[in-house]
């Protein structure tokens, strides 16, 4: 039985047993349902093997929403534990696991797939392309991400979750202090998902550079596409760093090297440095596409062109460059001396300038506009003030001497939630409401949508503003409890109430999806928001080939140009369209990766070797395969187009 002991959770609790049961039942229900409704074939043909960027996007979206709730449950448990002093809802070990997984899940398995969803769904449509440059690679990216996420999540019930924080600093995360397999999960699961992300980066850079519609020069690209291009460039530079870092961590933990250990010349500072060389650009990988979405939404609902297009692009380029020169501000307190801290303090505060330019550009876009308050616009208008608060506290944190007092406190926690929630999460929700009709052919209910936005914002303010105060009062982050005498009780109770209100907001999103699916009208136009860019020029639902005729573009608001200035987007006759074939290899290869990762985590070397061979066989199969794709005939196109126009 020794063999099986390793899979046991080292520190079980009721929550863990309940999750085991829940996961087990869900899996059984899904399998039974698929079998009963005879949907296995449909699932395989239409989803598991798809290479269509729109479907891959939707799968990213589903994963992101799923993970949002996993991370959200973590969050509410933490706030509940800290709501009153000396609470015993969770013990130290559980609390440590929960804040660790909350961070990783929210950043890597929620926010990342959410932006991947937007990039996948929107970018090809926005640039007038029929798919991404490498559709099959795109499928592989998704499935690697998905398997990485699933692998990470099973750590909760098999072997134990990581508990060294999402930053996983060594030597705490090393075998000297973390003996369970939790940190192995961290290294391997993120590695697998990270490889997928890196591939996405390459794929989208190629797509955006090579597949734009005729006439769309770089400076005529819509702002979201610009933000996606820059985010992907950052991915390509930053993610290899993560891959190397995680490989070094794995070697330290499982093979016995000494990169970061306490003994034999290992250096704990090295982990922190390399981690943030990736970690800081990662923040901009999330926020830039979010800025892109706000640019689209604000310009659409101000009924005006985006103010300062060139400075918007310039500021994003500048942010992306600066993002690689600020990593040290995550540990001003490591003792590198006044000069080094001064340099990084200045580069950090410098980022405020291009970011400020963007805020002012959005404000000036509203000027002389005709502002319509839809749900996406409401999120954007709540974003501006709340994000500004987060931005200015970021400048405060950038003052390195003062940072000695903010570092590792709730002030910092308040700051980064204050940029990520209004910055990234609101953008995702704005975008979700904005693009929902294009994806599914009906709108999300506006009334519920607006209620949600307000609830989230009230909850957000209540949950995070008190943290600024308790941080300045000396509350360190990551403490699972505090004494009554510490005096943090009131602030943390307010936080808990805020978190609970936010939780209601997130549940309302699900309710809105349910409600709208049942009751909202299917009778909407291709362009229900009266928008300005190409993705709204094609049919809803979007046909497989996106555009029957590739559009011709002469401004960065191609559709608006067509609507107002009589520009003709689609010229010419139908021609047969070349499309890629579906393939099961990405899915199968990723499943093998899953088994590989699981075996590696538990140091089961024979399955590791077998699955490694399996992975190489998949790659070999692909390289020897003769697949030239297929053609959609003019007749089929005509039929589809007539049907869609009639609908």
């Amino acid at each position, binding site marked *: 039985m020794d063999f099986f002991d390793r899979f046991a959770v080292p520190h079980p609790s009721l929550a863990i047993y309940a999750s085991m049961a829940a996961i087990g039942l869900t899996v059984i229900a899904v399998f039974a349902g698929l079998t009963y409704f005879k949907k296995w074939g449909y699932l395989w043909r239409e989803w598991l093997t798809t290479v269509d960027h729109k479907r891959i996007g939707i799968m990213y979206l589903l994963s992101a929403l799923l993970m949002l709730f996993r991370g959200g449950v973590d969050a509410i448990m933490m706030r509940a534990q800290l709501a009153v002093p000396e609470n015993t809802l969770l013990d130290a070990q559980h609390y440590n696991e929960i804040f660790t997984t909350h961070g990783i899940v929210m950043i890597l398995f929620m926010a990342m797939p959410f932006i991947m969803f937007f990039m996948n769904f929107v970018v090809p449509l926005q640039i007038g392309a029929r798919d991404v440059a490498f559709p099959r690679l795109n499928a592989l990216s998704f499935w690697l991400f998905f398997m990485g996420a699933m692998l990470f999540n099973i750590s909760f019930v098999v072997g134990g979750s990581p508990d060294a924080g999402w930053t996983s600093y060594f030597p705490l995360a090393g075998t000297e202090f973390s003996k369970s397999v939790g940190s192995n999960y961290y290294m391997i699961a993120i590695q697998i998902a990270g490889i997928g992300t890196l591939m996405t980066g390459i794929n989208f850079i190629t797509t955006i550079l090579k597949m734009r519609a005729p006439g769309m020069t770089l400076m005529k690209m819509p702002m979201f596409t610009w933000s996606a291009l820059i985010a992907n460039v950052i991915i390509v530079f930053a993610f290899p760093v993560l891959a190397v870092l995680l490989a070094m961590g794995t070697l330290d933990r499982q093979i016995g090297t000494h990169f970061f250990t306490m003994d034999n*010349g290992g250096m704990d500072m090295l982990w922190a440095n390399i981690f943030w060389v990736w970690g800081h650009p990662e923040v901009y990988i999330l926020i830039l596409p979010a800025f892109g979405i706000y640019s689209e939404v604000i310009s659409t609902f101000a009924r005006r062109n985006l103010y300062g297009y060139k400075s918007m692009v310039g500021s994003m380029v500048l942010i992306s460059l600066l993002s690689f020169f600020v990593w040290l501000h995550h540990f001003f307190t490591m*003792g590198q001396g006044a000069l080094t801290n*001064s340099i990084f303090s*200045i580069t950090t505060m410098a980022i405020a300038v291009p970011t400020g330019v963007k805020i002012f550009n959005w*404000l000036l876009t509203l000027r002389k506009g005709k502002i319509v308050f839809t749900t996406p616009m409401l999120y954007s208008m709540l974003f501006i003030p709340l994000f500004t608060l987060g931005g200015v506290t970021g400048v405060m944190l950038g003052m*390195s*001497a003062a940072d000695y007092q903010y570092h590792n406190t709730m002030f910092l926690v308040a700051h980064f939630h204050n940029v990520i929630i209004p910055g990234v999460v609101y953008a995702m929700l704005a975008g979700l409401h904005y693009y929902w009709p294009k994806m599914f052919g009906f709108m999300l209910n506006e009334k519920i949508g607006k209620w949600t936005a307000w609830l989230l914002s009230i909850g957000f*303010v209540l949950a995070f503003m008190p943290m600024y105060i308790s941080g300045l009062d000396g509350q*360190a982050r990551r403490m699972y409890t505090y004494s009554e005498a510490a005096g943090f009780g009131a602030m943390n109770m307010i936080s808990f109430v805020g978190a609970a209100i936010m939780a209601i907001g997130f549940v309302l999103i699900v309710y809105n999806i349910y409600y709208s699916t049942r009751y909202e009208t299917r009778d909407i136009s291709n362009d229900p928001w009266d928008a300005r860019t190409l993705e709204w020029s094609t049919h809803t639902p979007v046909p497989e080939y996106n555009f029957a005729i590739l559009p011709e573009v002469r401004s960065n608001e191609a559709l608006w140009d067509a609507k107002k200035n009589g520009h003709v987007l689609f010229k010419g006759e139908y021609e047969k369209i070349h499309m890629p074939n579906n393939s099961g290899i990405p899915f199968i290869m990723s499943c093998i990766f899953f088994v590989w990762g699981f075996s590696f985590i538990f140091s089961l070397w024979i399955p590791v070797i077998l699955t490694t061979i399996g992975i190489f066989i998949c790659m070999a199969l692909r390289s020897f395969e003769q697949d030239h794709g297929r053609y959609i005939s003019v007749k089929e196109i005509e039929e589809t187009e007539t049907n869609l126009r009639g609908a």
Partner: protein
Amino acid sequence: MHKKGIKAAFISVFFTVITVLSGCEPLLVLDPKGPQAERQASDILLSIGIMSIIVIVVFALLVYMLVKYRASKQKADYEPPHIEGNLWVEVIMVGIPVLIVAFLSYVSVQSNYIVEAKPKGYEDTKPLVVYASSSDWKWHFSYPEEGIETVNYLYIPTDRALEFRLYSYGPITSFWIPQLGGQKYAMSDMVTTLHLAADAPGEFMGRNANFSGKGFAENTFNVTAMSQEDFDDWVKEVKETAKPITEKKFEELLEPGHLGRQTYTGTHLEFSPPPTGHEHSEESSETETNTESHTGHEGMSH
């Protein structure tokens, strides 16, 4: 209207909360008891002031735009114009933030050199050197010149520069006494130095601020600042009453867990010296050379 009402409510709740709280009891970081913490608190207040102006400007602009340019206030046939941008607007948009950032950078750089040096006002005093090392989940304070060592509590003289040499027998920790000054990391492979001083006698909260595992929340220590005479008396008393620290005893202390306050004569620096693996300390002092020795790293780092 509806929206503005709620927003105003947010803001007023936020500020009420701040005022009420700071009225009751000053926040630790903003209640400094030493020159370093004072400098940091004044930087913090300065930046809050400047940042509030920015926040107010952005809020005001937003409210203005939203009130003035809502669709409901425009004629039905109003067509918003196409405006590319304006050089002068953009110059202002970049220029003012650049000026603000430049000013804050100037302050920040100055502060860096201040907090990384002997505390202002105590430049002439001979610093008290204390080696503060952490182990899971305790703090060991060694006073090499006095020849004593404590666990989880720290006695310090007022009106004198304090020089803390920080390192760790385990995960990275962070030595933090909010009312005396900001924190610094204690790590296993190098010694970092933190300069502090206390202006007045008193009791202060000290803790490890960097997550270090299961016992992290309780990884705190008490700081008592007293006059030099009282401090000398205490040292004398410790020397008379406390037991010497032995290698064996120290090994026991390093075991993971929580300990109350303990006091010893002698320091562990003699048999378990601080790391020297990575050259860092800019100024080398006598104590450092005295305790120089090797840990496992030395041989391997070359």
